[in-house]
């Protein structure tokens, strides 16, 4: 139905003066006072009724989508991260079978956005009931009062006992002596490498010292000039921080109130790291530029990679079958023969949001996920290393050849500083080192700038600590 009217010349997107000119030029169907209004109404009724119908549909749609179907069962909101979030869904049905009046709703959140989303949820008062989080985030969430203390629940629990976990695994979950998280899986970084390429370069055994490591990388690279030896994404902080921890470096000083990046140990570790790029052993690529990590590893574009346990499963799934026996894992090389290579005491924990109305149910879900059977099942699904000692006795963990490196490495792990601002500091480390790798700043200038930025980041923490001390002294 088309209105048989001359097109209106009121300018809309032109400048306002057009409207003025338009009024002068406007001509339209001539009309008399009352009759045309009647005619207009008739002609337009169909259109308007149709419009009304569409509006009603719109409102109904909105109303329908706004309301949720009324479910008598208690629904537990669980936020899980990354690949774990995708696979944990398959552990839900058994739990729901045990507890018929409970439903678990799993929301999967990508790691890259997880920290941000958690804080946003906290500020927006939209936290889930149970959350998975990187254990380095616990100090921050505790300071905010976002997670609930778990000591009393632990004391009463039959399913989870503190001694079920290796000490280094439980420790990151303790903030100021109280437990706020239950370890779900442990994560540490080890060396993944193409054993066939290393062997062909004259290194049948993986390197155990920095010196041997560099030697192996240089030999691998020498065989094919178009490739690199190791992939170290430029904007990631994990590897340089590991190297600093291996040298017994302290990243923060004075009760974690100031940056300590200009100190000798950290300086030497970062210098070693930058050197790897300077020698062209690693490509200058950031994490986002690696469009297909697995294709590149398979094609030999790089032969070594520092990564975590999830890649055992991913490599098995994504590499061509012909390469199944050509790659292996090894613990990280240490600075010299006396010091075994240390790695990050990473891992994910489960925590209960403070103020959750379903705290008891949340605890049941956590206990369930912590059962050795579930831990082993989870490992089968995604390749993450169980936190519980008992789960390591399962045959598939004992027999998995790639896991041996992780088991060995877990004996030598160290945590990052437990400050709430850690995530931001880690980000700053990645950014500043990237500039140094690109040659935009010397190492000394970079470390000075990093110290300056970290000091600024920690300023509020110092103010709060001073105030706290003042109050305590009074």
């Amino acid at each position, binding site marked *: 139905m088309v209105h048989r009217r001359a097109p209106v010349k009121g300018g809309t997107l032109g400048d306002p003066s057009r409207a003025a000119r338009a009024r002068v030029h406007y001509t339209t169907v001539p009309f008399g006072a009352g009759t045309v209004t009647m005619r207009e109404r008739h002609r337009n009724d169909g259109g308007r009724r149709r419009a009304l119908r569409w509006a009603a549909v719109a409102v109904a749609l909105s109303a329908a989508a706004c309301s949720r179907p009324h479910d008598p069962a208690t629904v537990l909101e669980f936020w899980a991260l990354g690949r774990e979030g995708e696979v944990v869904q398959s552990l839900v049905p058994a739990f729901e079978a045990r507890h018929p009046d409970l439903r678990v709703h799993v929301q999967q959140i990508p790691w890259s956005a997880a920290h941000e989303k958690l804080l946003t949820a*906290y500020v927006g008062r939209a936290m889930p009931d149970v959350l998975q989080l990187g254990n380095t985030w616990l100090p921050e969430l505790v300071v905010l009062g976002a997670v609930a203390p778990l000591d009393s629940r632990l004391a009463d629990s039959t399913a989870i006992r503190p001694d079920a976990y290796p000490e280094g695994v439980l420790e990151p979950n303790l903030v100021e002596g109280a437990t706020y998280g239950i370890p779900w899986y442990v994560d540490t970084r080890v060396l993944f490498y193409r054993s066939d390429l290393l062997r062909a370069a004259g290194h049948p055994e993986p390197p155990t010292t920095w010196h041997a490591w560099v030697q192996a990388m240089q030999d691998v690279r020498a065989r094919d000039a178009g490739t690199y030896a190791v992939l170290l994404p430029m904007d990631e902080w994990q590897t340089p921080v590991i190297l600093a921890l291996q040298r017994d470096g302290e990243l923060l000083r004075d009760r974690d109130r100031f940056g300590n990046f200009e100190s000798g140990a950290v300086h030497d570790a970062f210098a070693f790291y930058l050197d790897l790029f300077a020698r062209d052993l690693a490509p200058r690529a950031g994490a986002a530029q690696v469009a297909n990590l697995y294709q590149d590893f398979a094609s030999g574009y790089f032969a070594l990679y520092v990564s975590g346990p999830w890649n055992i499963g991913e490599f098995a799934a994504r590499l061509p079958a012909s390469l199944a026996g050509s790659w292996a894992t090894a613990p990280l090389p240490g600075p010299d023969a006396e010091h075994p290579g240390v790695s990050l005491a990473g891992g994910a924990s489960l925590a209960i949001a403070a103020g959750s109305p379903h705290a008891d149910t949340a605890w049941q879900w956590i206990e369930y996920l912590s059962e050795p059977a579930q831990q082993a099942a989870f490992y089968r699904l995604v390749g993450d290393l169980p936190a519980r000692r008992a789960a390591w006795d399962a045959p598939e963990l004992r027999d998995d050849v790639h896991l041996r490196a992780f088991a060995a490495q877990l004996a030598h792990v160290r945590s990052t500083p437990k400050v709430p601002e850690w995530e931001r500091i880690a980000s700053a480390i990645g950014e500043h080192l990237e500039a140094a790798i690109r040659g935009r700043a010397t190492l000394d200038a970079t470390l000075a700038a990093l110290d300056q930025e970290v000091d600024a980041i920690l300023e509020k923490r110092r103010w709060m600590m001073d105030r706290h001390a003042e109050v305590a002294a009074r």
Partner: protein
Amino acid sequence: MRHREAGWAFVAPALALILVFFVVPVVASLLLSLTDFDIYAVASRENLRLVGVENYRRLLHDPLFWVALRNTALFVVVAGPLSIGLSLVAALLVSDRAVRLRALFRTMFFLPVVTTLVAVAVVWRYIYHPRFGLLNYALGAVGIGPIDWLGDPRFAMPAIILMAVWKNFGFNMVIFVAGLQSIPERLYEAARVDGAGSSAQFRWVTLPLLAPTFLFVLVITMIGYFQLFAEPYVMTQGGPSHATLSLVMLMYLQGFRWWTMGYAAALAFILFAIILVLTLITMRLRTRDGAEATT
């Protein structure tokens, strides 16, 4: 209903909404920028400190702020004229009397405008891939070596500029087409009678009469481009090495990633001030030759 009261009654819903959900937050933002409101303050009001202009002072000493300002200005100054120029060329082409299938071409040029920015940013991220992307493939065919578009700080901003121009030129083209159509035929006839060739017609008839449209397009493009955010967010996250860090991106990082909201609010106001000043300058240019715009 008396029609005097009707006026207020009709604008009331809109005004109330704008007041509560726009004006009040803007004012609150100004107040926020005078404090060090951050996530500790969200946890407990005691952790809030009033700091006056300290945020602004820190911003002006923050190297990241100047990087973001430089990047955003670079984007506006390069992508703006490119986009507007391309739109004008497209408008001229599409309006030419000799063209058949005009509507088809117009549709094709406009299509990028309606596409979702996030979706096309994902697509362009792959087009820009140094080893597998279409762009490097095409460049390689003419002998230009592989360029790491999104990974090399020298090329990241040009990559974003190219994408932004691609996305927007159709929009301004439509406005230019409307402007071209409003130029009366008789002026061209008069010019032809006077012996003017087509390029002279363009210079003395088309351009001057297009000036008001041009200025309008310039202002809206400039305001829009200063708010560059989604492209860096999806494609580069402000990298590599802050090469594509824009002012709004920095504001987002400070405000919604690190939750230093006082600082982010100060940044937002500085951005507002910049846009306001530039808009006023451009408007001033318009009123200067506004008299010539009428026919």
